[in-house]
């Protein structure tokens, strides 16, 4: 540090208040207006999704005055919890630049396992859930090992998995075909709501942690004399997230309250997001998704890193399957089939996770599920045919993928310069 370059010195010498101005200049003045507040990279795509979501909500609110009611929004969160949970795992796989087509089938198998163990074998609810999650983990370990150690494209192996696990699901369900959930532990997962007082405590605690954590890391960066983001940007981000949490809690409290399943989804997103952004393992996942060969040459065991991602993805798919079974109070032969897989993959992609690997946020799982869930929910309210629903969802997905490809083209054109 003693031979610090003159370039960084002015920024380093200034304490907090002026640092923001300096760092804005240091970024060559290319960030102005809204961009200065919301920053570059991932924040922009998050902002884009939020605008799309607001548009969708506005359209449906105009078309049907029941859309923005507390009751319907609560239903919406209940509807997205299962798919969103599956999508959290899908995001991890997409970050690697791989794909997992078996997540829908795995969610179905997990639902069937929970049903059979808890109803037919009368296992304790928690044990049945753990067993189903373990089944998911084993499936992921098997598929991930084949993909990484034999170098077979994940597309093919997980396609084979899709077929296989659907067959296993039918086998597990056996003669019955349909199992109605009876164990209260399982049915309560997606059908309980936080008491109003508790929901406010949770919301305020979350806000306190978020604001405190952000300010603390800002403090540490300032103490280390590193470049800080403009203070106004920090404030706007903290304020908008806090207000969003408060408004959301207020609205759903007008109806039944905050669903426990939504809390589970948000907790999973928070945990996985922390792992991806803040731990060495997460960094290695992003690196392997960006340039696998470079990652391997840096001494990182890429095969192990990738296999673990497949394990996590299948386990999260199993968790989603359990939530779906809990919400519908039953599993049957069509659980996890149909559009479950497609929507679980489409959601994160719509919300900005790149199919080319290495770019995207875990929050896209939640946001993407909300976008798709809103389209589906709104059209149900308007009593559209499912044909229209599929076509509209398909067009939104195509639009999102085209945006991703265009962004990638721009990046490559820039990188060459």
């Amino acid at each position, binding site marked *: *540090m*003693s*031979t*610090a*370059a003159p*370039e*960084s010195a002015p920024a380093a010498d200034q304490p907090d208040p002026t640092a923001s101005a300096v760092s804005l200049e*240091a*970024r*060559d003045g290319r960030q102005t207006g809204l961009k200065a507040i919301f920053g570059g*990279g991932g924040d922009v795509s998050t902002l884009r999704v939020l605008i799309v979501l607001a548009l969708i909500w506005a359209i449906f609110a105009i078309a049907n005055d029941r859309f923005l009611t507390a009751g319907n929004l609560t239903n919406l969160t209940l509807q997205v919890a299962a798919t969103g949970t599956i999508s959290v795992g899908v995001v991890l796989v997409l970050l690697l630049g791989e794909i997992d087509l078996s997540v829908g089938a795995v969610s179905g198998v997990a639902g069937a396992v929970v049903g059979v163990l808890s109803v037919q074998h009368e296992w304790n609810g928690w044990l049945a859930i753990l067993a189903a999650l373990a089944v998911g983990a084993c499936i992921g370990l098997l598929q991930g090992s084949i993909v990484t150690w034999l170098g077979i494209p994940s597309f093919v192996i997980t396609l084979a998995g899709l077929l296989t696990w659907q067959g296993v699901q039918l086998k597990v369900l056996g003669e019955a075909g349909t199992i109605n959930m009876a164990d209260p532990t399982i049915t309560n997962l997606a059908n309980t709501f936080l008491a109003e007082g508790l929901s406010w405590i949770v919301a305020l605690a979350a806000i306190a942690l978020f604001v405190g954590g952000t300010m603390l890391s800002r403090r*540490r*960066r300032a103490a*280390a004399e*590193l*470049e800080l983001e403009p203070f106004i940007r920090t404030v706007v981000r903290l304020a908008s997230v806090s207000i969003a949490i408060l408004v959301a809690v207020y609205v759903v409290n007008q109806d039944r309250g905050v669903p426990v399943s939504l809390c589970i989804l948000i907790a999973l997103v928070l945990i996985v997001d922390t792992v991806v952004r*803040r*731990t*060495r393992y997460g*960094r*290695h996942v*992003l*690196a392997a*998704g*960006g*340039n696998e*060969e*470079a*990652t391997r*040459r*840096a*001494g*990182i065991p890429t095969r192990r890193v990738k296999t673990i991602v497949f394990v996590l993805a299948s386990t999260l798919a199993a968790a989603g399957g359990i939530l779906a079974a809990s919400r519908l109070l039953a599993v049957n032969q069509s659980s996890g089939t149909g559009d479950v897989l497609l929507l679980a993959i489409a959601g994160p992609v719509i919300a900005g996770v790149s199919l080319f*690997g*290495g*770019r995207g946020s875990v929050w896209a799982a939640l946001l993407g599920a909300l976008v798709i869930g809103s389209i589906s929910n709104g059209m149900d309210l308007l009593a559209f045919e499912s044909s229209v629903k599929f076509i509209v969802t398909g067009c939104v997905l195509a639009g999102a993928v085209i945006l991703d490809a265009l962004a990638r083209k721009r*990046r490559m054109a*820039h*990188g*060459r*310069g």
Partner: protein
Amino acid sequence: MATETQAGAPVAPAGAGPLLRLRGVSKRFGAVQALADVDLEVNAGEVVALVGDNGAGKSTLIKAISGAFPADEGTFEFAGHNVKINTPGDATQLGIAVVYQDLALCDNLDVVANLHLGREARRGPFIDEIAMEREARSLLDSLAVRTLRSVRAEVGMLSGGQRQTVAIARAMTGNPRMVILDEPTAALGVAQTEQVLQLVSRLRERGLGVILISHNLADVFQVADRIEVLRLGRNGGSYAATADQRQAVVAAITGVGQDSEPAAPITTDSGETA
């Protein structure tokens, strides 16, 4: 620069013989004799350019030194000790870092993350971004890198010269004693080439041994101290990197005798006296 001695200076007594000495290195791929009885010496604080036409054996020799393709025969001495280099790990252990032509950077990560890839600093269970960012800055400062606007810039958004700079800086994170650069200026513009060559001189100032592979003789003559020619897998001569040697070097690379040497295949140590 007096404070920048961490790169192996305490262990390498100056002038006590070469940092790296290869004797009689041979390598055969099936019927192809890629290297035949090649010698090479590199001193600490010296930039040795390795030149030769396509297929002359430059890459094979580099891979033998870096452990990617161990040599069949020959003795390796590093800092006065006989060593065996059988894996890339052996080379790293000795303090030999290689910057390959494809740079091996992750475009989706920022400069800090790329510099620390595989050896991220930790604070409890989490990555210590602050320590890594400070270290990245002091590393880039010590190499007098002025071209990077922000260490938080995504590497994919950088120019070719900046990417090469990041790759070389990354090789320095392990505090190596020798750096091998494979075509660092290929596909770079004039200004960017200049930046990279300045960085190479800075490695020399820090007392590292540098092997530079290049097709571009202008770059070689600008930055190298000595030029070693490889031709058809054999030593094609050793030249001082002074402008008057240019014709001789070209002749040695192409095998076309400028005045005395005929265009005969090199069978003996014909380059020694050139």
